[in-house]
């Protein structure tokens, strides 16, 4: 999918190994392929704004970082609600397209690969309604 995944929680790398071996490897063939990182004390999570000092755990924060090391997008959810992996892929593909076109194309609401992009420029100001319909965000 064109991106390296890093996961992180306050659990030690020993616990990561146990979770991989005892549960995750039964859900994913061959176990977890990416690095499972350990952030004891939440030092990294604090800097990223996802560490809850009272609970001592990290929220479901997900950060998309481009090849220059720049944060392009992020999402944070409280623990009981899981992420939508497809939405993460959609956003990653959108950011990759914007980068490949050096900003000449932008991806409107609900865009996914194969759908229409917009080409920002003076002629488009006030005319988006002529070239793009609201329904396109939902199809």
């Amino acid at each position: 999918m064109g991106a390296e995944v890093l996961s992180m929680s306050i659990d030690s790398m020993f616990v990561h190994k146990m979770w991989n071996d005892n549960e995750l490897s039964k859900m994913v063939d061959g176990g977890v392929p990416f690095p499972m990182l350990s952030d004891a004390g939440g030092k990294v999570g604090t800097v990223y704004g996802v560490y809850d000092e009272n609970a001592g755990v990290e929220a479901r924060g997900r950060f998309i970082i481009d090849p220059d090391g720049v944060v392009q997008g992020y999402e944070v959810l409280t623990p009981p609600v899981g992420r939508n992996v497809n939405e993460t892929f959609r956003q990653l593909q959108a950011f990759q397209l914007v980068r490949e076109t050096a900003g000449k194309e932008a991806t409107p609401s609900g865009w996914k690969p194969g759908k229409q992009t917009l080409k920002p420029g003076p002629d488009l100001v006030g005319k988006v309604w002529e070239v793009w319909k609201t329904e396109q965000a939902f199809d």
Partner: protein
Amino acid sequence: MAEKAEVGCARPTGGPVGEEPVKTPQDTPKTIKEVRGMIKVGQKAPDFVSPGYQKGEFINIKLSDYLGKWVLLCFYPGDFTFV
């Protein structure tokens, strides 16, 4: 990219590395205080080093070693939790 770690009895740990976030000159002192350490899109992801586990090995990872690649950095509440 991932450096293999020797494991002893102490539980290893990591943390943020590198400089503080850059302060833009036009910021007032109040603004600097408020935005310090806040993650913002369009700005550099804070670098860090962290120990971890991958495919049977204990490793050390530095975020800035991934420059040149897209990275998805995913935090979650804890191993053996439910969602």
